[in-house]
């Protein structure tokens, strides 16, 4: 238990500050945006292409038929196929629920369909904050003793080196996960308070789902936690292997730049999110709404991430154990 006390020294609590500030800002954005959809029932989340305006259900039906007709001429490899398919699913959903166009929040800008979005206002900034916080905290938690010189006393204490490594990992992972749960719960409560509409999202490939705020908050929370576990594990064990946090931090920056590159060059504005966050989001949402049948692509991307982190953890532990402390 002594490692718990050490973990919650002032130095490490400072790492939580950016996240708390980020949450406060997100909460403010959420409340101010609340007026925007006073008369709207639905909002649309990412990965849904623009749909045409319709004034009646008949007009929506004709749009549906037109899209169905167009898609019949397209092969699966066609560039337009995915867009048309998603539009078709979208029209089918709106038609089956009798949703009028006016009740859908209109969108502004190219990246989002509405000013209010769980992704834009919360999950995205929190994801970025959690990414950096977890990389820095994870890297420093195990390497700080080597920088400060206290490693001499820690690793000559008679406790197994791997026990120290894993106990710190477990405690810090649990502490950060608990923090994310608290943050997301607060956010969900704020969101419920402003009477936001349900969110329509394309969760998992080619599936349209409608989520209440509660559902959305749970999925978002699981998504952030699952991602956090991956990033944190990789940063922690890589730092342990190097006895130094500089190389893992540089690695994390390169990965981040790579993600930003995908973001800017992707077909959809938020492709970068699909790379890490959305794959998990889609995976969790798919499992939540469709039982044990999530999107194969999302599942594969997540598995690759999990195995990468696990490989780094195993290799890092072995190197850490074999290596001299001093």
């Amino acid at each position, binding site marked *: 238990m002594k490692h718990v006390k050490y973990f919650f020294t002032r130095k490490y609590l400072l790492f939580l500050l950016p996240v708390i500030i980020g949450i406060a800002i997100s909460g403010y954005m959420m409340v101010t945006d609340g007026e925007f959809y006073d008369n709207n029932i639905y909002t649309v989340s990412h990965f849904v292409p623009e749909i045409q305006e319709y004034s009646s259900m008949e007009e929506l039906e004709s749009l549906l038929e037109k899209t169905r007709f167009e898609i019949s001429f397209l092969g699966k490899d066609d560039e337009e196929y995915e867009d048309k398919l998603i539009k078709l699913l979208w029209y089918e959903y709106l038609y089956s629920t009798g949703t009028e166009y006016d009740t859908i929040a209109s969108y502004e800008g190219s990246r989002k369909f509405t000013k209010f979005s769980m992704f834009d206002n919360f999950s995205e900034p929190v994801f970025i904050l959690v990414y950096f916080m977890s990389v820095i905290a994870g890297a420093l938690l195990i390497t700080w003793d080597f920088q400060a010189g206290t490693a001499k006393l820690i690793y000559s204490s008679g406790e197994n080196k791997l026990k120290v490594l894993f106990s710190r990992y477990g405690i810090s992972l649990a502490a950060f996960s608990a923090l994310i749960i608290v943050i997301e719960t607060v956010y969900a409560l704020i969101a419920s308070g402003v009477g936001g509409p349900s969110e329509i999202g394309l969760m998992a490939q080619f599936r349209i789902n409608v989520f209440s705020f509660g559902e959305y908050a749970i999925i978002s929370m699981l998504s952030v936690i699952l991602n956090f576990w991956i990033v944190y594990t990789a940063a922690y064990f890589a730092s342990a292997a190097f006895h130094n946090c500089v190389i893992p931090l540089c690695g994390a920056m390169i990965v981040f730049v790579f993600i930003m590159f995908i973001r800017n060059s992707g077909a959809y504005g938020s492709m970068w999110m699909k790379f890490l966050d959305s794959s998990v989001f889609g995976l969790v949402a798919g499992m939540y709404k469709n039982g044990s049948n999530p999107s194969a692509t999302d599942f594969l991307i997540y598995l690759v991430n999990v195995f990468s982190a696990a490989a780094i953890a195993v290799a890092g532990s072995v190197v850490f154990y074999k290596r001299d402390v*001093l």
Partner: protein
Amino acid sequence: MITTSKLTKSYRKKDVLKGVDLEAERGQIVGIFGANGSGKTTFLKCAAGLASFGGELLIDGRSPVKDCSVLKEVGVMIDVPSFYKDMTGRENLKFFCNDLSSAEQYIKILGVEDFIDKRVRTYSAGMRQKLGILTACVKGKKLVLLDEPFNGLDVLSLDKADELLDTCRKSGACLILTSHMLEHSGALCDRYYLLKDGKVFKNEDLEKFGKRLYRVEMKDADCADAIVRKFESNVCDKSAKTFEVAFENEDERLKFLNAILGCDFLSVKETTDTVEGKYRIMERKDEAR
């Protein structure tokens, strides 16, 4: 208590320890002395389980690398003592020591009551050094490993540190310390080892290097040259009118003294039989060879 046999350690193909054999029992203070880079600290790192090694190193019959639980009663202070700066000295003591039964007694002996409850951030280098010695002694019920424990301590603190180490020895712990303050440490130690080029010489072994070192200043250089030529194999150092000689053999030493008496000399200084003297003899004889 602690025995090493053919202990070796290399860093990037450089052999630092080349088969060190050492033995120390409980209730003993053992000194390890040697020049910078001779492998003193490396030896302590191996004993503290902080570095892997070749050969054998056993504490109470167990290897600290293979069975680290043996280190639970081993106190360590290596290089500059480092602690969690946001904690007080006492909190650090609690953090790093499993058994605090002797803590209060040792705090009083070392005279650190004034600052033990202050944050380590506010400590001077000397205060940290004292906390380092204290932590190692409180934790090390069986074995205490101290690397340059007297660095940065004033004269009064040195006396208190000596008293603390002596108390540890009497309580049945085995203490191994390295130091460059040879005269001070030598007087404290029951036994000492000199490390040179990764090899070790026990104090018993050092007897063969002789007990006498003479530094002689002659009136003129020719006379000095004549003596140096006669006792060439014993010369450690030479400048124009001054030279140093060391003798392992008593007959040779007497011959030298007789030879000197027949010459014009300004001064003859004989070193006493200290660790420092032995160390100097060993080093200079080696250089002369």
